[in-house]
């Protein structure tokens, strides 16, 4: 969607959007006709609004949360790939990995 639709759907001012983009919370695609926003950007914008309006976070707070959210998703997708890769191994390899994980967990609890 274009910039005006994006702002309309989130009911935000142009100055608010500029701050979000300046801060790097949103990275819309830049095309010849202006900025282009994906559905993922819209959902992200809703999250930013929730952080500000619902939870009362200020700008540095939102900055911190968005950075951690992005790190978290980076971790999650890498972890998912790893578990997918493990699940494609033969049962005895999976068994090996599982028992090693168990051993590590027991070790850490001590």
């Amino acid at each position, binding site marked *: 969607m274009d910039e005006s639709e994006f702002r309309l759907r989130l009911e935000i001012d142009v100055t608010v959007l500029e701050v979000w983009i300046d801060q790097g919370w949103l990275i819309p695609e830049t095309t010849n006709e202006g900025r282009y926003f994906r559905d993922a950007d819209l959902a992200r914008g*809703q999250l930013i609004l929730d952080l500000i309006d619902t939870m009362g976070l200020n700008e540095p707070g939102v900055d911190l949360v968005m950075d951690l959210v992005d790190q978290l998703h980076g971790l999650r*997708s890498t972890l998912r790939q790893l578990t997918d890769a493990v699940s494609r191994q033969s049962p005895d390899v999976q068994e090996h990995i599982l028992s090693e994980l168990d051993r590590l967990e027991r070790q850490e609890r001590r």
Partner: protein
Amino acid sequence: MSRDPYDILGIKRDAPQKDVQSAYRKLAKKLHPDLNPGDKQAEEKFKEVSAAYGILGDEEKRARFDRGEIDGSGAEKPSRNYYRDYAANEGQRGPYRNTGGFADFGDTDDILSSFFSRRSRGQSAMQGQDRKYSMEVDFLDAVNGTKKQISLPDGPALDVQIPPGTKDGQTLRLRGKGDPGFGNGAPGDALIEVHVRPHRFFTRDGDDIRLELPISLTEAVLGGKVRVPTPSGPVTVTLQPNSNTGKVLRLKGKGVPVRGKDAGDAYVSLKIVLPDAPDAELTALVSDWQAGKTHDPRKTMGG
């Protein structure tokens, strides 16, 4: 939703309104689906809490609920998509990719660590380099904002939007106008340092504008309307009679426009200016002016 909204928010029925908000904020932080991407129940609970707050957060609705006029089910909002539903695809590529959570996993030299280090270095996609430029703009263009084109020695001309209130030395970032990226990587940014040329009579003081306004002796003594230039165009100001040099007038909102708040002010400092050539009539007038001979403006300086 049938549960009591007071139970959902965990507050007493006589809790003051601001406790309702803080209870809601506390729960919202804990339950927001985007802050709990792996917890499927978080969304349901978050909805429940939001609906409860929809009633109790509004004093009028709360009173109606207390009187039993409405039940605990608020009108459901249209369903929304949470960012976490998209984020699975953002993790490895996409603009929000962030590998800070495991950047150090690739430091050892076993086989698996290369799996992490490849991701954290992002070999398949690397963002292009930023490019630095500098440009000069006129004082008023920087204050009021404008569109400029800069031509680059090694590339196409670049349209630069100078936002209103741009300061001297400020850097503008044009996303994606730097060097191209590698692979699927995004291009770098163009960083443009803006140098603001000084103005003939305006000076900038933070968000305020200062200027010295020459006035004639007649205007100073009798007062009256004078035109005052401001960055957004001239305005008419009424001088009080007996307006002295050094008197400062504040023109509210006539300073630098500031994004997201009120514009700064213009401060006009008056300066009485005599005619360039001596004037016989004025000389005669002042010679006859008795009080002028006893008026000592340097009285406070001693000596």
